[in-house]
């Protein structure tokens, strides 16, 4: 019933010249998304992936279990000296992420261009 979560990793460079690892998600972000959300993140080399950018452009549904996976990632990122940012959330999920406080630990941007320009 839940749409399978797909994840893809892209390596980009910000206009300021910093390497940025982009995790692009597609489908639902829910309790069944652990491998796609956390597993893909955990497979990144911690030493070189210091800036992590989450792409939610193709995500339609995020529930509280999915939010918990994002928080789990933020915990691991904080412990690894990584910084996490996100873009592509709908206005509703931007509001939800703000309500639960994720924006305190992960900067949100409207799109990839805006995000890269800030990194």
């Amino acid at each position: 019933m839940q749409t399978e979560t797909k994840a893809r990793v892209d390596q980009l460079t910000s206009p300021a010249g910093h390497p940025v690892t982009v995790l692009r998600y597609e489908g639902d972000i829910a309790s069944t998304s652990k491998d796609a959300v956390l597993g893909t993140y955990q497979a990144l080399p911690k030493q070189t992936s210091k800036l992590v950018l989450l792409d939610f452009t193709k995500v339609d549904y995020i529930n509280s279990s999915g939010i918990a996976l994002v928080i789990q990632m933020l915990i691991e990122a904080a412990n690894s000296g990584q910084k996490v940012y996100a873009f592509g959330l709908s206005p509703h999920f931007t509001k939800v992420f703000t309500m639960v406080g994720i924006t305190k630990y992960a900067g949100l941007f409207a799109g990839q261009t805006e995000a890269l320009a800030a990194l």
Partner: protein
Amino acid sequence: MKTTSVEVRLPSRMGYEKVAMSTAAAVAKLMGFKEDRVEDLKTAVAEACINAIEHGNLLNEGLSVGVVLSSVDDALEVKVIDDGKGLKNLPPKPDIDKKIHGEEDPRGMGMFLIQALVDEAEWVKGSNGKSSYVRLVIRLDKEAD
């Protein structure tokens, strides 16, 4: 005052909350709710159903979750009914700092979101330890945040 009711019965299986979510969205759109309020309702209904499936019916697929949507004038009431004993106490408001520092479970956002996104939310224990429900109300004239 004219009341219109729609009922949905869901299996206690994760993912089926999306059926209730879509039904609630369809009813809210028919009533004239704005898109942002429809999105608030969808998340609140989804979280209420997830709680009913996981904590109320303990993922027992032999039990179903009832969802009753009743529109009265400018308000839409949603009752999500399960076979659990109901809540003893409402959990405290989640604290992102405690979660990030490992002092609080990363989970536990669902009830907070429900309360934050609708105009009224109450959890009612069923008699004889069954048929507990959460009742949500969202009003048509609520100004967008």
